[in-house]
């Protein structure tokens, strides 16, 4: 099993850190653009982990999933950006907290 030069744990740790970064962004950001970016980071963290694991096991599966994730992320973000436009038009702001009406 030698597709991976660095130890797997290191890459997973990196992916984990990326994931946490994304999560943190999700929790502290109010601007919808930044939130979408954080989401991308999280997805990419997962993708990175897949690539690393695939390399570790010497299989192409990891890369395939990586490609799928890329496609998915693109789809999500495109719909997301569409919604961002609507939000901007409707609420005149990109601050999600201000666009929130529901609750309780």
């Amino acid at each position, binding site marked *: 099993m030698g597709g991976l030069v660095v130890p797997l744990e290191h890459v997973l740790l990196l992916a984990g850190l990326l994931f946490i970064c994304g*999560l943190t962004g*999700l*929790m*502290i*950001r*109010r601007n919808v653009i930044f*939130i979408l970016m954080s989401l991308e980071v999280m997805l990419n963290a997962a993708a990175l982990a897949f690539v690393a694991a695939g390399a570790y096991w010497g299989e192409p599966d990891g890369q395939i999933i990586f490609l799928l994730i890329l496609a998915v992320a693109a789809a999500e973000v495109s719909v997301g950006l569409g919604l961002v436009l609507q939000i901007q038009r409707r609420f005149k702001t990109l601050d*999600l*907290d201000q666009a*929130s*009406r*529901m*609750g*309780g």
Partner: protein
Amino acid sequence: MLQNTVLIPLLPLLSAVILIATAGRLPKRLVATLGAGSVGLSAILVAQLSIAWLDNPVPYSLHLWTWMSVGDFQPGIAFYVDGLTVVMMSVITGVGFLIHLYSTEFMQDDDDYSRYFTYMNLFVGAMLILVLADNLLLLYLGWEGVGVCSYLLVGFWYKDPANGAAARKAFIVTRIGDTAMALGLFLLFTELRTLEIQQLAAAANLQWEPGGNLPILACALLLGGAVGKSAQLPLHTWLPDAMAGPTPVSALIHAATMVTAGVYLIARTHALFLMAPPVMLAVAIIGVATLLLAAFTALNQTDIKRILAYSTISQIGYMFLALGVGAFSAGIFHLMTHAFFKALLFLAAGAVIHCLHHEHNIFRMGGLRTRLPVVFWSFLIGSAALAALPFTSGWYSKDEILLATWTMPWAGPWLWAGGILGAILTALYSFRLVFIVFWGEAKTEPDRQPEWRMAGPLALLCLLSVVGGFIAQPLDQVFPAHQPEHATGAVAWITMGIAILGVIVAYLIYLSKQWSVEAGLNSPGMSRLREFWYSGWGMDRFYDSLFVSPYKTLARIMRNEPIDQLYNGIVQLSLWLHGWLSDQQSGQLRRYAASMVVGLILLVAVLAGAR
């Protein structure tokens, strides 16, 4: 002849059913005919029965149907007739008929004429069932039945809440005793497997040691019932209040019949009581204590009916005394004579009240001797019998009781002394009543005279009060042959004559006013004592603060359901949690994300932690 026994209680009940069904639509005349007539018919039947039975005085029983049958618990709707039953039935239907007759005039102006006779007939029916019952359960039926009728009749004039209160008091206080009695029934059945009275006696003799715990407990519980119904200490407080009912009711229920049911019960179950000497002693002591207490109280009352009520309590005390010392037939004898003269007194008092615009206070009467002569003579004869002046009926019966009391081992003389003191007091208060009401100056003018339907019964009862002492009761087979011996000598003389002393004292104080007791009576100590006596030895207040008020307070505190607070607490908790959780649901995306992160961290912790 004997199978007609069934008709005796049935007739009044039937009349009551007809009166209920017609619901007051019958004319008064017809109601009166039905109400009084049915009891009169019963009385005739009783007379026939008595005559027939006296020819061949053997107890017999009449089984109608089995009431309920569960395993060996098989009480029947069954009657048992012996001497005691005959005496009781005669008193109930005889005196009962006279009182019904009297009522037809007394209640003439009342709108609820029909309702009155319904209750009265129901009462007579229930009372007859009580004395006819061959088992304690059926007796209990009659027992409770008369209780309810008493409740209904005391509260007959329901529009005044005070009457309702008196009625409820009467029912509930007796109910306390009844509950004890019911427990007694449970105990008797559990131990002896029957409630049939004659079998009970036999079974008890076989299974129980005289003086053992079980007979004592059983008799004590039965005594509880008797004490309640007969208004003896400590459950006597209801009777004076029960005077709120129409006066004929007081005469019938609260003098002649129902209140003596306790005496009847003890006499009926004497076989059991004889196996429990301590209870017998208790009966005697209760009797003496009650008769003294009630006599002192009667001495201070101003309401004519309350005086008579306390006097009733006191006289029943004598009967209890008789039962307690084992002189059962003397007790029943006094029961009968008391029924005569006390009914007479009540009816006479009723006549006074009737003719005096419902005046009850004796100090607003006076001088009626000439204005209401019939009533005066009735009252005088009644009082004489009550005071047990020689050769009246009361004299014979009370004499017998006191003489028997003296011979009771070790406690006898003390009880006798109490009885004698009571006799003086009885004479004193009864003639105080006579002198104040019928002599002196008139304070209220009567507006009418009793007509024949009232006067007739009075006259008949006068006769009975005088000659009642000569009626021989067929009780020899009912009670144990060896009744207590009678005292002789000085004791006998004192016993016989003591009442005269009381009358003389009453004369000196209340009529000739030669003894001025005003000063003594008004001294601070004395007036407080009189106050105390007046209030019936403070028993009402005592019970009120010990039971009634706490119960009411308890009910008031609890009325909003303490247990429900627990469930309300759960509801409040849920709502509070709902509120808190809803607040978290703020609509902020960041917060939602944070909750997910928290969930993730917790899950990781749990999963990794609980390997």
